[in-house]
C-alpha cells in the first residue's frame, strides 16, 4: 500500500507540473492586446501599453516569468490579479470567494446525495410503476430541458410563492435555500439515474436470485446486498466532487448574485489574467489528482475484491 501511495503521489505531482507548465506557456502565446479590455485598448497608445506590460513583467522571457512565479509560490506569495481585479492579491480573492462557493457546493452535494439516493431507491422499489416514472420524468426534465428555463422559473416564481429572496444575502439564511436547491438539481438526477441503473443490474445477478430463493425478503436483499454493491461505483466518484465543490457554477452564482468562484476561471482566461489563471489551474489540478487518488483509495476500501498492489 505504501509503495502504491508513493508511486501514485509522484505520478500525481508530475501530472500537476505538466498541466501547470503547459497552461503557463500557452498563456504566453496569447496576443498582448488581450491584456487590455476593449474600452482601455482604444484609449491608450501602444507605447504606453508596452510600458504597462513591462512593469508587470509580461515582456520578460516566459521561463523568467515561470521561475519568478514558482519562486514566489514557494515563498507563499500567489501574486496579484492582473486584469480581472487589478492588483488585488490572489490569496485575498480566493480567501473571499472559496468559502462561499464551498459552503454552497458542500450543502448542495449533501442534498444531492440524500435526495438523489432516495429518489433512486424509490425508482427501484417501484420499478415500472408511478415512482419510477416520476423519477424518470424528473431526470429527463433536468437533463433535457435547458437549465436556464427551470432555473429562471425557480428564481422568479418559487421565490414569489414561498416569499424567498431573489438573490443571496449572507445574513439571511432563507436566501441560501433556492441556490442550494438549484445547485443540487443536477446531482439529484445523476445519483438517482445511476443508482437505479446499478441496482437493477445487481438485482439480476445470481447472488441476489440465490438470496431470494433462500427466502430473504426483497427489502432485506435490496438493503443489505443490492444497495451496498450498487453504491460502489458511485462512491468512488465522491472525492472528485471536491473540485466541483469549490469551482462553483457560473450560471447559478450569477443568477443569485453569489460572490463565489463560479466563472472566475472563465473570466480570468478571457481577460488574460495570467496570474489568476495560473493559480486557479494549479489549485484545480491539485484537487483533481487528489480527488482521483482518494477515489482509488476509497474503492479499495469499500470493495474487497480490489487490491491496490499485486503483492497485497
Amino acid at each position, binding site marked *: 500500500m505504501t509503495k502504491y501511495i508513493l508511486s501514485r503521489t509522484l505520478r500525481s505531482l508530475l501530472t500537476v507540473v505538466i498541466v501547470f507548465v503547459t497552461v503557463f506557456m500557452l498563456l504566453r502565446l496569447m496576443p498582448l492586446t488581450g491584456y487590455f479590455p476593449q474600452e*482601455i485598448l*482604444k484609449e491608450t497608445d501602444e507605447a*504606453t501599453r508596452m510600458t504597462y506590460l513591462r*512593469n508587470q513583467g509580461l515582456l520578460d522571457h516566459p521561463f523568467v516569468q515561470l521561475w519568478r512565479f514558482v519562486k514566489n509560490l514557494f515563498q507563499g506569495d500567489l501574486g496579484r490579479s492582473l486584469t480581472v481585479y487589478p492588483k488585488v492579491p490572489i490569496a485575498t480573492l480566493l480567501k473571499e470567494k472559496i468559502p462561499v462557493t464551498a459552503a454552497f457546493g458542500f450543502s448542495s452535494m449533501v442534498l444531492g446525495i440524500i435526495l438523489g439516493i432516495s429518489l433512486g431507491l424509490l425508482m427501484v422499489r417501484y420499478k415500472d410503476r408511478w415512482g419510477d416514472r416520476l423519477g424518470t420524468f424528473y431526470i429527463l426534465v433536468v437533463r433535457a430541458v435547458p437549465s436556464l428555463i427551470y432555473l429562471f422559473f425557480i428564481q422568479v416564481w418559487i421565490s414569489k410563492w414561498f416569499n424567498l429572496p431573489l*438573490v443571496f444575502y449572507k445574513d439571511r439564511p432563507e436566501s441560501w435555500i433556492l441556490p442550494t436547491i438549484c445547485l443540487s438539481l443536477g446531482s439529484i438526477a445523476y445519483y438517482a439515474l445511476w443508482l437505479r441503473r446499478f441496482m437493477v443490474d445487481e438485482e439480476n445477478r445470481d447472488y441476489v436470485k440465490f438470496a431470494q430463493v433462500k427466502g430473504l425478503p426483497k427489502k432485506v436483499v435490496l438493503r443489505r446486498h443490492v444497495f451496498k454493491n450498487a453504491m460502489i461505483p458511485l462512491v468512488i466518484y465522491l472525492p472528485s466532487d471536491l473540485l466541483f465543490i469549490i469551482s462553483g457554477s457560473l450560471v447559478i452564482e450569477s443568477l443569485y448574485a453569489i460572490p463565489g468562484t463560479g466563472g472566475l476561471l472563465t473570466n480570468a482566461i478571457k481577460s488574460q489574467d495570467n496570474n489568476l489563471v495560473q493559480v486557479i489551474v494549479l489549485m484545480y489540478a491539485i484537487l483533481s489528482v487528489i480527488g482521483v487518488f482518494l477515489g482509488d483509495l476509497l474503492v479499495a476500501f469499500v470493495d474487497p475484491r480490489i487490491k491496490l498492489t499485486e503483492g497485497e
Partner: protein
Amino acid sequence: MKRALALLLALLLVIPMAACQTGNPSAADPTEAPAPTATQEPQEVQNAAEGIIGGKKYLKVYKTSFSSSYSSFNYFSTAYSTVRSIVSNCIDGLVEPDIYGVYVPSIAESWETNEDQTVWTFKIREGVNWVDHEGKDTGLAVTAEDFVDGIRYIGDPQNDAYSLRVVRNLIEGLYDYYWNLDDIDDPEVQTDLVRDEVIASFDETVGVKALDEYTVQYTLTSSAPYFLSLIESSMLLLPVEYDYAMEMGDDFAVDNEHMLYCGAYYISHFERDKAITLTKNPLYWDLEHITVDTVEYQMVPEGTTSLEMFKRGEVDDTSVEAEEYLSMAGTEWEDKLIPSERSLSTNYLWLDFQGENPEFNTFIQNENFRKALQYSLNREAIATLRDPVNPARILRNTINAEDAIFDGNGVDYTDYEPLKAIKETNYSNPELARQYMEAAVAELCEADGTIKGIEACTVDYLPVGTFEVDGKLPVTVIYVGTDDESEIIMAQLMKAMVEEAIGTDLINFEIAAFSGWTYGTVADPLNYDIYFDSLSTGYADPSGLLTRMTTDGAENVGCYEVPEYDALIEKSLNAATFEERLQYFAEAEAYLCNGAYVIPFISSLRGYYMTNSMPFTSPLTLYGNSKYKGTLVMEEPLTYDEYKTLEAAYDIARTEALKEN
C-alpha cells in the same frame, strides 16, 4: 429564449419610417470659467418638484444594483468606466456640475483662467479633510499639493496609470516627464537620466503647481476652454494623499479600507462582487446638500432579476431593455417606464480600407460605394431594436453627441454647419443607395460584371474564418460581429436592408458571428470588412474623438487616408477662438461623415428605466459619472406622467440657468 423571442417580436415591429432628429436642448456654457453659481438648494428643488407633482415622502436610504464587478477603486490606474460612479461620490474634484450641467465650485471655491485658457488657477476651500473608511477624520487636509500629487502619481509609469493619454498630452511637461522615467525604467533604452533626479524635477518641469497651500495652477500645452469638463470626466485630475498612497503601494484603493475619501460619501462596506455601501461623510464640506444618508449597492448580474427586485421593492431603480418593455405593456408597470435620457456614445460601422478581401478593398476606396452603404441602412428600423416605441430618439448621424459640447454663446457644436446638415439628413434612401452603387459598379467593373484587376481567391480572416471570393459581382462584404444574440439580429437586419436597397445582384453581405470576438483579434489585425463598435464623447470638446480619427490616429482602425480631414483637424487645433475651433472641427467631422469613411448611425442609448428617485434633483453629470448629492428618493416609483411634467419644468429652468451663465 424569452429575450430572443422578444427581440424577434421587436423585429416584426420594424417598419420604415421617415427619419427625424432628437431635440436639441438648450446650450450650456462650460467654457466660461469665472462667475460660478451655487448649487441649487435641495429644499428648493424639492419644493419646486412638489409644487408640480404633489407631496412626496423622501427616504434616507437609496438601494441600487450593479451588474459587473467593481474590480478596484484605484481611480488612477483603474480606467474602467464603472468605477467612476462610485469614485465620483467619494472623491471630490475641483468643480462639479449642478443639476443643469453648469460647473459650480466643489473642492475649488473659485477659479480663473488666462485669456487663451492655457493657465487655470483654482482656489481650494479650506477645512476639507480626508476621512477613512469609517468616516473618521484623518487630520489630513485636502490642499493644493494633493492635486499636484495626483498628477505626480499618474506621471510615474510605475504607478500603472496607463489610460492617461489626454491628460499627459495636455499638461505642460508631463509628456516628457513620463517618457523620461519610462526610458530610465526600460532596460533596452540607453539614457543618462537618473530616476531620482527626474522625479525631483517634477515641480520645476511639469505644469501643475501649488502656488500656496490652497491655490493650484495648471499650465496646459494648448488652449483648453473645455478644461472644466475634463476635470469632471477624468479621474486622473482628482486629488490624492500622496504619502498615504505611497505607503499603501500596490494595495492603494484595491478595496475600501486602503483609500481615503474627501467626497460626499465614504465606502463603509465593501464585499467584492456582492455589495457596496456608501455612507454620508460626516465631515463633508457641503453636508447640507446631502439628501441621502446611505447608498446601498448590491450586485445583480441579471437584468431580469434586477427588474423583479424593483417590482418587489428591493431596489430603487432598474433598467428595462426594449424586449422587457414589450412584455410590460398593458401591465401596472407600463406607466412607470421612463425613457433613458441621454448617451454620449455613438454606434458606428467601421470600414476596413486595407483588408485582405480584394473585392471589398477595391470598392471601399470608391466614395459612391461607401455612400451606397451609408444610404442603404434604415437607421430608424435598427433603432427599433433598442426602443420599439420611440426609435427616433436613438438616431445619430454625427460622431460627437449632441447636447454635449457648447460654444461660448451656448450653441450646440452639432448645430454648426455643415455638421448640422448631416445631423438632419435622412440617410434611409434605398433608391439613392442603388444609384450610388450603380455608379460605383460603372467605375470599378467590366461590362460582364468582373471587378477590374481582381481575381478569385480565398480571404484569410482567421481566426474569424476564411471566405471565397470570385472577383465578380456581386461584391462580397464580410461583416464581423460578436455572437451576442441582439448583435446578430442587428446584423441580420442590416444584411436585409443592404441587400434589398443595393440589390443582391450587386452586393453579397455575409455575416460572420465570431464567438471569440475581441478588439485584438478582429479590429486591430483588420480581420473584417465591416464591423460595429462605439465611441463616446469624453469631455466638452470635439478633439477628444476627432484628433484620434486622423490618418495616423489611434482610433482610425479602418486605416483610411484622408489628408483633407487631417488638415482641418490641424486648423482646429490652431484656431484663435473656441468658436473658430468648433467651426473647423465641425467641418472636419462633416467631411468624414459625408465621405462615409465611418458610418455613425445610432447612439448607444437603449431602453427604459424605472426609478424611485425624483428626476433632475442630482447633478447633471454628462461624462460617465453619477452623483447622489441632492437626490430625492421617493417611497413610490416615479410615473411617466410625473416625469414628463417635471421634464417640461426642468427644461425651462435649465434654459434660464444656462442663459444666466
